[in-house]
């Protein structure tokens, strides 16, 4: 210990012991109570908050994923339904067209047949009328011939031919 007499720092001074104790214990108790503990608690709380926020985000993500798959299922279902509806509509359309076609055909044939009938009737009526007219004319001619019978044979035949000329069947 020869050199230590000058080595002041190795000799604990009562004043320094006293003040160090006071200052350090005050620092420990006061700052410990008003700063270190609150800081540690705030840090702990923040850690928990961050953890729970992360957990929440994870849950939200999971939920989102669930929702998405649900949506997709819904969408697929909707798509299927749409296809079914379209198919049905197509079928209905085809059925309607066919029906209409049938009906039109029927109608047309009906119209044709009634027109034929009419034509036949008209034809028959016309023929009847022609027959009647021809009969009338024949009677008339016969009448006239009968009126002019007396005047000679030649005259008669020329007369008949003029009558015939008169009868224009136009």
């Amino acid at each position: 210990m020869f050199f230590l007499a000058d080595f002041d720092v190795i000799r604990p001074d009562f004043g320094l012991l006293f003040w160090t104790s006071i200052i350090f214990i005050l620092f420990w108790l006061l700052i410990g109570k008003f700063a270190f503990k609150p800081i540690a608690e705030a840090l702990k709380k923040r850690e928990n908050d961050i953890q729970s926020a992360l957990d929440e985000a994870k849950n939200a993500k999971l939920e989102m994923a669930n929702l998405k798959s649900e949506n997709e299922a819904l969408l697929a279902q909707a798509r299927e339904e749409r296809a079914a509806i379209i198919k049905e509509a197509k079928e209905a359309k085809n059925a309607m067209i066919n029906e209409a076609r049938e009906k039109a055909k029927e109608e047309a044939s009906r119209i044709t047949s009634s027109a034929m009938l009419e034509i036949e009737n008209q034809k028959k009526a016309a023929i009847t009328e022609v027959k009647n007219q021809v009969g009338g004319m024949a009677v008339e001619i016969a009448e006239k011939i009968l009126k002019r019978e007396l005047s000679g044979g030649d005259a008669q035949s020329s007369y008949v031919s003029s009558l015939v000329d008169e009868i224009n069947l136009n």
Partner: protein
Amino acid sequence: MIRFLQIFFFSLVLSISLGAQGHNHNHQGDGHNHDHSGHNHDHGAHDGHNHGSHDGHHHGEKSHSAHGGDHSHAPTCGGDHHGEFDPGETAFHHIADANVYSIGPLQIPLPCILYAPKKGWDVFMSNKFKFKTIGHGDGSKAYNGYVLDGGSIRRVKDAGFPEGEPVINGFIHHDKKSYVCVGNKMYETEAKSTADGGLFGGGITSFYDFSITKNVASMILVVLFLSWLFLGMAKQYKIREGMAPKGKQSFMETMFVFIQDEVAIPFLGNKYMKFLPFLMALFFFILGLNLFGQVPFFGGSNVTGNLGVTMVLGILAFIVTNMNGNKHYWEHILWMPGAPAWVKTILTPVEVLGIFIKPLTLMLRLFANMTAGHMVVIIFVSLIFIFGELGENLVGGYGTAVASTLLTLFMMSIELLVAFIQAFAFTILTASYIGAAVEEHDDHH
């Protein structure tokens, strides 16, 4: 590794300081030469152990008449002495506590609180001693029987010392004793009262110094700064709850969380909250003072390198550990379960010793590391003056200045690291001691 380096440097420093005592008695040419006769050299301690070799080769070459007188005769006041540069003494002086606060060469007075059992209390500012603002902290006046010698208060031992405020001519340090000169008369002064029981050259004397010394002032400054920092931080956590940390918060949070997560929680488990304030206070108190002491020209207070300070911290660590020791802890110390009886008789004394050795090592580790660091830096700077022979050898002076600046730079960067490492080591070891004391044992092994 760094510790090893420091121990190496520490021994180097000691050998330089002791060797220098013998070889480098150079004349100091500044304004300090008047009556400060023996003040800067010739410290009792060095004389005490170095006498033989000292006298042997010293007188032949470099001494002058006045100097020789210091060794062969009792020193006298008013002699024509020259101050000399002694790096050992310089280093010891710089790391020591003082009753003035030195910023560079500037001396700032501090409050003195003195108690002498026979005389009572004396409370005054240290500028009562009329020391020079720019100087070495020697008081030019005495006050109530106290004098300021090299920044430290001493009490005059001899009766018959003039009352009031006599003018002091100088201080003499000779053969382990210090003297003060008033007129042409020499009066012996007492050393400080110290709690080393005379082991390290101190002991209880007739007065106690409870002054706000340089170390106490530094401690107050650092603690105030830390309080401001942490109270502000705690406030920010309150008002900025749920927001990202900012400013002081983000600055200190890293270290706070580091100590909490790497020191407190691993060793103390779920009981960490109870001991967190103590560990945090230890870490930041030590770290703050370690770093504060590194600032050049700002006192350079060697607070954590003072055994008194580390002793208080060690004792508190001891108290906290053993006050919280549970049944298992004491069982393991006093009567190790599961060990054969003859082993127990060996184990118990070892374990009981261990209780005291643990805080003792805490105390010494911090003290030695910080003091060694301060001394190495001071000695590196002193090298300039040794080799420059105080202005007489310019080549030596400038050459060493370059080398020693580089060395000092290197040492100071290491010291910066050491400041953190030592604060961390003290805290983590304390945490491990407390952890061992409060640990719940499930199995008996």
